[in-house]
């Protein structure tokens, strides 16, 4: 664990991977580490608006193995994305095979970013990683299920985007009137299904 200063009010803690970042962020929240924002990233946790004794507090972190599993969300998906054929070929299978492969993996929301409720889902094996589009699409429809590198994501609202589109879901990913506005808040486990 390495702690980097970020301005006067924040620290960026580097850990081994997204899973460790998620575990550290979850631990910090449950043990009441004082911070306005605790933001897990792909290999870091940002503590923003913190007390000066953060390093001492973090020394008590038992490590990533202590992460309690989050709730499971099953997302029914219509698998008709524009890039499904392309991804299937890259995976050495056909569209049906690609969907089976993806539906067989339990993913975990590692962190949110890009847009409210947009979760970076981890769990895809490295050999299934795909490059982003060289030129992002100007408009990706809300609910699009997509891949980039070894991340999987679901667009909560229509936006420009450079991820490879596999399908779409009607699940309400973002609702400001819900107590937990993000359906896929960090720590949530996710399974895709045929919808």
């Amino acid at each position, binding site marked *: 664990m390495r702690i*980097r*200063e*970020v*301005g*006067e*009010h*924040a620290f*960026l803690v580097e850990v081994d991977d997204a899973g460790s970042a998620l575990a550290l*962020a979850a631990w910090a929240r449950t043990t009441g580490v004082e911070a*306005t*924002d*605790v*933001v*897990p*990233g*792909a*290999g*870091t*946790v*940002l503590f*923003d*608006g913190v007390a000066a004794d953060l390093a001492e507090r973090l020394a008590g972190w038992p490590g990533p193995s202590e992460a309690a599993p989050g709730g499971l969300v099953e997302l029914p998906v219509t698998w008709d994305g524009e890039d499904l054929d392309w991804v299937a070929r890259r995976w050495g299978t056909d569209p049906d095979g690609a969907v089976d492969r993806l539906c067989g993996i339990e993913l975990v929301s590692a*962190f*949110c*970013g*890009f*847009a*409210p*409720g*947009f979760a*970076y889902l981890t769990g895809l094996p490295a050999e299934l990683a795909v490059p982003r589009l060289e030129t992002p699409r100007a408009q990706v429809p809300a609910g699009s299920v997509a891949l980039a590198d070894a991340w999987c994501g679901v667009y909560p*609202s229509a936006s420009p985007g450079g991820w490879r589109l596999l399908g779409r879901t009607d699940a309400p990913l973002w609702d*400001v009137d819900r107590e937990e*506005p*993000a359906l896929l*808040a*960090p720590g949530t486990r996710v399974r895709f299904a045929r919808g």
Partner: protein
Amino acid sequence: MSTGELRVLRAGVLTTVQDLGRPGLAHLGVPRSGALDAPAAALANRLVGNRPDAAVLEVTLGGLEVVTSVGRWVAVTGAPAPLHVGGTARGLARATWLAPGERLRLGAPPAGVRSYLAVGGGVAAPPVLGSRSTDVLAGVGPPPVRDGAVLPLGAPSGPPAALDTPRPPVPGPLRLLPGPRADWFAADALERLRDTSYVVLPASNRVGLRLDGPPLPRVRHEELPSEGMVLGAVQVPPDGRPVVFLADHPPTGGYPVVGVVAREDLWQCAQLRPGDRVRFAISPAG
């Protein structure tokens, strides 16, 4: 006291409702938002006797015209937009009585970008995730104020302040604390930052202050895995031109941050115009 409403006859280029924003939701991808020139907004609220969390109007380059259905104290701070109430010129940064039906008009400020109009009781647009701030990046909060909008007002919470409120801060170079990714740049990157007079680009907005100048060369060229971003972070995209993250910045980002502008200096970023020049001072110096 009865609540009333504020009717917007003309909204100008961009007028938004702003309060202290919605920090604490960055892990869900929600920007903090809030008034860009926070000390100016806070002063406007104090002047009319509002609580610090009351919502004000952030007016970009003037052009606002409003009337109220009830008499209220009002105050305008920030960019010095000429203020007229009922056709009479009035001073800035002081409480002024706005009678029911009387027209308040803000002209174009000769300097600066964002003026703040506080109204006694605050603008009571429905809060979203605990804040009334309009976030232009993610679209959280009330939409930008349009011509013809009718905004509810809250009940006044106190009398207007005396005139001797704290002095507005004085402009100067933006103090920059190096890191967290200063090591991704050439060893002389901080000196280059300090020695360059950057030009503010027209693409600057509530998300970030975009600067033009000699590109800052990187020594590490791999992709930075997405990490949390703070207010005031100076992010350097592949073109090497720094962007200072302001209130509506994305909560995570994939470009390295060379340093962070001190919180006390961020108000200046709200008031710099395209074409203005700005410098950084490395803090602590040396």
